[in-house]
C-alpha cells in the first residue's frame, strides 16, 4: 500500500508540471498584460511607467524564462507577489479567501447529500410512483433555475421584505462585539441563503445519480436472494442495496475535492461573499498572472489528490478492488 501511495504521489509531479506549463502558456496567450490595464487610458500615466512596471514584474523577459523563474519559486513554495496594485503575496490573498469558500462548499455538499440520497433511494424503491415523478420534477426545476435569479428572489422576499435573513455578506457589522455563541449564530444566519441556493442546483444531478445506482443494485441477484431469505424490505434496502449503491458516491466525493476551493463569481458577487470565485475572476480580468497561476496550481493539486483519495477510498470500501 505504501509503495502504491508513494508511486502515485511521485507520478503527480510530472503531471502537475504539465498542467502548470499549459496554464502558463495559455494565460500568456490571452491578449493584454497587467501593465496595459494599469497604464492604458490613464491620462496621467506615462509610457515609461509601463516599461518600469514590466521590468518590475519581469514581463520583459522571454516567456520561457518567466516560466522557469516561476517554477523555481514554486519549488520553494513561493507563489510570488500579486501584480495588482496591492502587491501582496499571492499565498496571503488565497488563504484569506479559502475558509469561507470551503465552508460554504462543504455545507452545500453536505446538504446535497443529506437531501438527495434519501430522495434517490425513495425514488428508486417506488419507481414510477407519484413521489418519484414529483421529486424528479422538483430537482429538475432546481437544476434549471439560474442561481443568481433564485438568490435575488429569495433575498428580496426573505431578506428585504420579511427581514428574516441578512441579505448579503458573511458577518454582521458589529460582529466583533458579539459573544462567541452569538458570533456562530451570526455566521449561520448569514450562510443560510447562500448554502441553500448553492445546494439547490446540485440536487438534481446527485439524486438522479443515486436513483439510477439504486435501481441497478435492486435488480441484482443478491437482492433477490436477500428477499428470498425472507428479510424485511427495510433490511434489504438499507443493508444490502444501499451499501452497494453508495460505492460510486466515493468517486463523486473525490472529484468534488477541487470544487471545494472553487467558487462561482456570479454567486459570490450576488451575496457579496469574498470567496475564491471572485478572486480568480478579478485576477483573470486584471491579467494578474501570479495569482491566476497560484489558484490554478492549488486547484490542480487538489484535483490530483482528490482522484487519489477516491481510488484509496474505493479500495477501502470495496473488497473486490482491494484484493483484485
Amino acid at each position, binding site marked *: 500500500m505504501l509503495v502504491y501511495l508513494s508511486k502515485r504521489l511521485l507520478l503527480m509531479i510530472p503531471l502537475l508540471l504539465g498542467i502548470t506549463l499549459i496554464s502558463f502558456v495559455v494565460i500568456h496567450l490571452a491578449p493584454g498584460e497587467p501593465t496595459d490595464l494599469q497604464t492604458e487610458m490613464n491620462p496621467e500615466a506615462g509610457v515609461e511607467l509601463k516599461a518600469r512596471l514590466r521590468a518590475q514584474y519581469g514581463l520583459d523577459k522571454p516567456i520561457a524564462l518567466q516560466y522557469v523563474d516561476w517554477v523555481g519559486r514554486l519549488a520553494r513554495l513561493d507563489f510570488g507577489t500579486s501584480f495588482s496594485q496591492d502587491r501582496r503575496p499571492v499565498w496571503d490573498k488565497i488563504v484569506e479567501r479559502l475558509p469561507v469558500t470551503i465552508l460554504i462548499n462543504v455545507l452545500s455538499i453536505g446538504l446535497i447529500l443529506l437531501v438527495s440520497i434519501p430522495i434517490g433511494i425513495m425514488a428508486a424503491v417506488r419507481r414510477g410512483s407519484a413521489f418519484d415523478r414529483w421529486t424528479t420534477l422538483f430537482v429538475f426545476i432546481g437544476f434549471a433555475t439560474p442561481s443568481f435569479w433564485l438568490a435575488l428572489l429569495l433575498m428580496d422576499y426573505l431578506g*428585504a421584505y420579511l427581514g428574516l435573513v441578512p441579505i*448579503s455578506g458573511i458577518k454582521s457589522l458589529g460582529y466583533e462585539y458579539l459573544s462567541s455563541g452569538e458570533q456562530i449564530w451570526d455566521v449561520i444566519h448569514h450562510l443560510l441563503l447562500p448554502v441553500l441556493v448553492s445546494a439547490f442546483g446540485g440536487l438534481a444531478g446527485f439524486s438522479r445519480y443515486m436513483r439510477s445506482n439504486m435501481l441497478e443494485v435492486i435488480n441484482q441477484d443478491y437482492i433477490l436472494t436477500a428477499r428470498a431469505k425472507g428479510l424485511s424490505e427495510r433490511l434489504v434496502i438499507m443493508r444490502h442495496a444501499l451499501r452497494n449503491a453508495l460505492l460510486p458516491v466515493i468517486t463523486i466525493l473525490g472529484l468534488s475535492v477541487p470544487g471545494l476551493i472553487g467558487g462561482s463569481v456570479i454567486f459570490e458577487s450576488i451575496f457579496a461573499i469574498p470567496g475564491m470565485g471572485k478572486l480568480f475572476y478579478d485576477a483573470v480580468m486584471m491579467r494578474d498572472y501570479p495569482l491566476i497561476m497560484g489558484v490554478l496550481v492549488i486547484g490542480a493539486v487538489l484535483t490530483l489528490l482528490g482522484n487519489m483519495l477516491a481510488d484509496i477510498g474505493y479500495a477501502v470500501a470495496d473488497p473486490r478492488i482491494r484484493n483484485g
Partner: protein
Amino acid sequence: MRALVVALMLCCVLTACRDNAVPEQRADNGGAPQPAVGDTIIEGTSADASNLLPMLAMDSASGQICGLVYNGLVRYDKNLHIEGELAESWQISADGREITFHLRHGVKWHDGAPFTSADVLFTYHLIIDPKTPTAYAERYKQVVEASAPDPYTFKVRYARPLASALISWGIAIHPRHLLAGQDITKSPLARAPIGTGPYRFVQWVPGEKIVLERNSDYFEGAPYIKRVVYRIIPDSTTMFLELQSAGLDQMGLTPLQYARQTDTPAFRRRFRRYRYPAFAYTYLGYNLRHKMFQDKRVRQALSYAINKQELVDGVLMGLGQVATGPYKPGTWQYNPDVKRYPYNPQRARKLLRQAGWSDSDGDGIVDKDGQPLAFTIITNQGNDQRIKAAEIIQRRFAQVGVKVKIRVIEWASLLKEFITPRRFDAVVMGWTIPNDPDSYNVWHSSKTAPGKLNFIGYKNSRVDELLEQGRHTLVRRQRKKIYDEFQRILAEEQPYTFLFVPDALPVVARRFYGIKEAPAGIAYNFIRWYVPADQQRYQR
C-alpha cells in the same frame, strides 16, 4: 466671475426643476436639528480598494478612502475653486513660475508625529523617484526646484508657468517619518494608512469592508460622524436590497433604480436622493486614420444622424444631458455656444451626399467608389450604458444608410488588440472630466503615438497651439478664451460625436443632516454631516 456663479446657480435650479422629487432636494435648511457627534455611516462600494497609499492607487475605491485619510496642500472647494487644505496660504510669483506654500501649524499625523514641510518635500521626491511605480509622476517632473526652507514653508519652481501646477499640490501628502528609506511597494501603510485627514484607518477585511474612525484632533474641526464603513458589494441589485433593508446608508443609484424603484413615498421617507451631472462623458470616437472618417462632412452627418436626447432618455432614463464637448456643463471652462447637432436625418443624408456617399446600387447602404459606408463600433464588456448606446446608434445610422456592426470586447483585449494598435473603426467609450480643462493628453497631435491617449489620431494645428497655450496660461479669463475656441473647433470638426453626460445619483439615509448639494457634489463637506442624537442608530 459673478456671471459664472449665477450660471452655476441657474444650472442647479434647472437640475432641481427637471426632477419630479423637488421637495426632498430642498432638504433641511430651516429648522435643522442640533448637530451631534456619533453614529456610523455605511456606504456601499462595488469594488474593494487595492492600495491605500494614494501614490500607488489608481482605482476610485482606494481614492475615495484615501480622500478621508489623507490631505493635500490644496483642494477644490464646493464651487470647484481652489482652497487651502494643509496649506494656509500660498503666493505665486509674478512670472508665474514659483509657488510658495505656507503650511498650517500644529497639524499632526494620526500617530501623533507633527506634520511639516519635510513631509511635502518627501512626497515630491517619492513621486518622481523612478523606483516608485506611480501613474502621477508626469506633472511633478516639470518642477525644476523644490525646497523646504523652514518647517512651515514649501517652495516649488517650474521652468514655465503651468496652469495645473497649483492644483497638482492637491496630491495626498505622505508621512516621511514612516516611509523614508523604505521600499514603498512593500510598506505596511498600503494596508493600514496613516495620514493627516479627518478619519483614521481602523480595519480592512479584504473583500468585505473597510472601517474608518473620526480623527478627533482634525485640524479643520473633528467630524461629527464617528465611523465610516465601506461595505464591498459587487452586485448593484444586492446593494440596493441592502439599502432597502437598512444594511447600507449610502450608495450610488443606477438610472433604472432612480427612475423606477425609488420614487415611492416609502423610500423617500427613509432616504434622500441627490442628482447632479457626473464628471464624465460618453462619446462615439472615429478612427481618423480611416479614409471614410477623414471627411469632416461624414462625421458631421453621423452626428446629425444620432438622436442624442433619445440616448439620454433610453440609456440614462432621462437622468443626464446631451454632451456638446469634452467639458462638464456648468463649469467655467464649458462653452455652451458651440455648433450643436440636433437629430436631423435629412441633414445627415444631405451631408453624406455632398461628401460623395449615395446609395447607387439600391441596397439601402450609401456607397462611394463602390465601397459601402459600413463599419464596426467596438465597446467594452460590462458597461451596459455604452452597449445600449451603441445599439441605439446602430439603428439610427441604418436609417441614413450607414451600416454598423457592434462588437463588445473584454476590457484587456479591447485595449491590447484594438485601441493600442489602432485597429478599430469607431468606439463608444467614456472619459472622466478632470476639474482642470487641460486636455493636452487626449487631443494634442503629439499624443497620437502608440500607447498614447489620442488614439483616434486627431491632428489639428490650431488645437495643438491652443492646448499648449492653455496649459501655460494662469489667468482664468485668458484660459477660458483659449478653451472656448478649442471647444468650438471640436464641435465643428466632430472627431468624436459627444453623446451624453450622465448624472451622479447618490442616495443617503434621511437621518444624516448637513448635506448640501453644490457643483462639487455632496461629499465635499462630509465632515460636517451629522445625525441628531435622537436618531443615531449605531452606538459603538
